[in-house]
């Protein structure tokens, strides 16, 4: 019987990969929302920025 492992990644590698993905998404939404708002002449406002960012944390 072959022994199977749940994961071939070490815990440091998991941390690194998860932190990479998470920071990318958070910074993408945090900065992208402001840039989109600026492109639209600040018509969307803070609500848009907050709404874009907080679902990423949830």
């Amino acid at each position, binding site marked *: 019987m072959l022994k199977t492992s749940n994961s071939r990644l070490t815990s440091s590698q998991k941390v690194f990969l*998860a*932190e990479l993905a998470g920071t990318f998404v958070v910074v993408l939404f945090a900065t992208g929302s402001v840039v989109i708002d*600026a492109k639209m002449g600040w018509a969307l406002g803070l609500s848009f920025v907050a709404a874009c960012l*907080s679902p990423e944390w949830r």
Partner: protein
Amino acid sequence: MVYAFGKVLMAHFNPALTLGFLVSGHIKKSQVPVYLGAEIANALLASLFVMYFVGAEANLSANAPNYSFFPLPVIFGVEVLVTAFLMAVIFAVVYTKGLKGLSGVAIGGMVDLDIFFFSFISGASMSPARSLAPTLLSDAMGDLWLY
């Protein structure tokens, strides 16, 4: 993101939180470079993505303190406060039994409140990585030290 990655790594996504978790003994010193490296590298990648695929308006969203209405000590204090609020909420949900399921809602809510009430004063970055990346790419380094 908190729900997706919280079990793997406590979901920092923020160098300020990484240092907070180091001070509180949640992570080892040897893990700090891994966290910081990942956070800063991918904050830069995310800002590059925004620059090429969304646009470079508003200095790529580099944080800008409101010097017109607030003196520097107030701005500095507010930035410390918003980051402390975020850290406090994270500790509260981590340490309070029964609240772990609400961690994403609580943390997201705190981020919302920080943005609504404090972004017009200091920019409410809450994250040095989020400030560093757009600042470096848009060459607006003047206020980076604040974050």
